[in-house]
């Protein structure tokens, strides 16, 4: 399995665990790479991970376990009394 495939797999496993949409996941992933590794990686969607360099894919694999798992939708629902 290539680095990119491993990174993609790790990321989708995170989405599954956190039960989040890829949109939220990608935003958090980019943020984590930026804050932890001071790198700007441009990700349009999860499939962009498949096109990263090996080094960038390594970073994805390293940060993915530290990503926040909370649901924004649930927090808005709480505020609206709909949870």
């Amino acid at each position: 399995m290539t680095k990119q495939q491993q990174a993609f797999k790790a990321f989708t496993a995170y989405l599954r665990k956190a039960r989040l949409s890829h949109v939220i996941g990608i935003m958090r992933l980019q943020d984590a790479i930026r804050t932890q590794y001071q790198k700007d990686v441009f990700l349009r969607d999860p499939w962009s991970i498949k096109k990263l360099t090996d080094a960038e894919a390594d970073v994805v694999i390293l940060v993915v376990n530290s990503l926040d798992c909370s649901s924004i939708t649930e927090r808005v629902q709480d505020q609206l009394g709909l949870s």
Partner: protein
Amino acid sequence: MAFRSVFLPVWFTGFFYWRLWLKTCYTLIIMSRETVRLPKTEEVRSGLKIRADKVVLLSTEMEKVKDSAEKERLRLELEIAQKEYEFYKWERDITGAKKGNRFGVDLKDMLECIGIGRDESGEFTIEQPEALDRNHLVMVNMGELDRLNSSGDHKLGDVGLGVTYYRIQQVVSENLREYLEGEDIEEKIPTMFEVYRVSGNDFAVVLKDVNEEIAKRITEGLEGNAELPEEHGVEAVPLAANNISLRGSFEVLKTIRSVFGSESVGEIDMADAEQDDRTLLITLLRERLFTMNDFVKVRSRLERMVDKIKNPDGVPAEKLYNDFLKKTLGTVFAKPGSDAALDFGEFVEALRDRGAGLEAGAENDPEWERTLFLTSRDQSIRAFQDRYEMKRKLEVELHRQVISDLRKRANEQLIDIPETIPESVKDSVRPEYGAEQELAVMEFETAMEDLEETEGQQILQNLENKNKEAKSIGVREARLAELMLGVEKLKRDSRTGLKERGMLFGEMTERIENKKPISVISIDMAFLKFFDKEGGGKTGDNAILAAGKILDAVKRKYAEIGAEAYRVGGDEFVFTINVDDAELVQEVIQSIRDTALEVGPIPEYKGGTGRYRPEMLQFNFGAKGYSEEQNPTMSNPDKLVHEADARVEIDKAVNRFVLLLQREDQIQRMPATDRSSAVADLDVLYAYSAKSIFGAEGKEKIKEWALEYRSGSKSLKQLTTELIAYIAKGLENKGKKDFERDDLEHVLLRNELIIEMQHAEISKLRESLEKANKEKEVDHERIAKLKERLTEAEVDRDKVIQFRKELA
């Protein structure tokens, strides 16, 4: 799903036949000639029973027959009979009238046919304005159903309803026969009307392409008593009928659109606006039809009591009042402040005091006519008001948090939502379609092949094949294959093969009625309009197809818990599981997201606008469950879907805000030289996101947040907190706008109803005046009174009309 659709009334959204009308052509092919004509021409009989009897008869015959060839022939006959029975059962109720849930659907199609929609510049328009006066709706109420039902079992009630249905067909057909000229009259008549049983004892009739005079004559012909067959030995039932044309409600719709500045919309939202216009017009028509029927019903009941007291044949007046009419008429003349129903003696006195002639041969005092009008008007408007308040109460219950916040912000400005593609984007130079796009198409198609055809697609394909083969086998085989394919097509969306909206509500209702648990997951597919308009037709089609396959794959995965997937609208889907388990619901949702990830971005096909950039399929979810143990209050399918839909709105806003924020952030971090193309791409997405992000204000907020994030003055965590508060407030404000619009719609419609009732009163007074003038012994006092009341009524009407003008 739009908030508005969440609150559509049951009769319109529920439903076995959501898109069936569009399939009428097919339906006509597979229905036998007899089936098409039967409800319009033949005597009252239960079509359903006839078909059911045929099934029983053929089953019995088949058991007796020993010859194998004959047995095979009967087997085919039996299967055909079973399918015909199924078809009939789906479409009609026990009286033979079409089921009520078809009324709204057929009406919507009619409005589409007469061209109510938007023109090229997005302006509110109608292609055939004359159709507003040539299409009419008639409502017929059969009174005293309780009396029939109490005279034995419910069979007598069914007989009464059957008689009413027959009478409607007879009166409409006779009048149309007189009205029509030329050849093929008998062929034309069935195409000019349809009868629906819209509630227990109410029938609605759609009259097409007739003038007001004929609609009026039909309505008059449907008033009075309907006799039941003698062998039942019961008194006739009273019918109350009224009719409306499309005109009045169309004018109200125009006013509403003008007041809210939505008489013109941008290109992107044209299709939605057209749908909204038609949906709202149907709501307005429906309320008007029901309220005007209440108006004639109250009048008819009062007249019935006066007549009964005056001519005491059959059921005694006191029994009729106490057993059947007290609950509706008992408080009509109660003292102000009292809600206790009058007893029979008090009621008779009240009638007498108001001028009703109660002795044999006695004339009513002219004042009684006035009482009849005012009482009917006030009672029906009160019922209309009550229905609105009840609807509002349900909304408030759902949005209780929203309301408390709205009170604090009562004076805030409403959101302005511009929804057009910016000129800068329209004019921007974009790369041409080439190898990169073709490669993306190949990747996508491979991923699609990995997903199986949906179960529905396979079923339909098999039936199509059988249908082709059967034609060469024999007539009966061909008929059966045709019927089987036809029935299946009625149940499914042709694009995805998923079950349709009608199936969803039918299956939900069945589970809930049997007190079995069910969870509903409402699903909105993001960016369908973007896929469709920018990516070329095939891109949108493929997005829908992919969504269907994804949901079907997850359905198979969760077959053990009775998972089912439905396509209920353009970009709206519903997924159900037969458990009320929040944890499992989340698991299913994640499984849908996971499967969508495998498909990847939806590629551009040739024929796109050049502004398209592939986006991944993204779904927004909202869920709610029902079970007697955990959520017993969710025992209404509409309420369940309603609750799930409200949650979709939240997910949609969150996902869209975050997506746009992430893309905006990327642009901020790009070298300036690379930005122009990315800015244009993002502007296209903004144009398709206006509603989800609360318009221009939301866009500005995203840009502001992106700058703060880029500069490091705010972390993602801080932005998330702000985002949550912002979305919550935005949804609250959206709720406020919806409530304000509902209030205005209600006021305008109420005025329209009052005007219509005043017109009816004026017309009646003019007739009475004319009659009084023609009488041999002219009663000058009566004529003076009538003239005085006519002037009063005209002044009242003009006041309301003036109020409407001021509002507009």
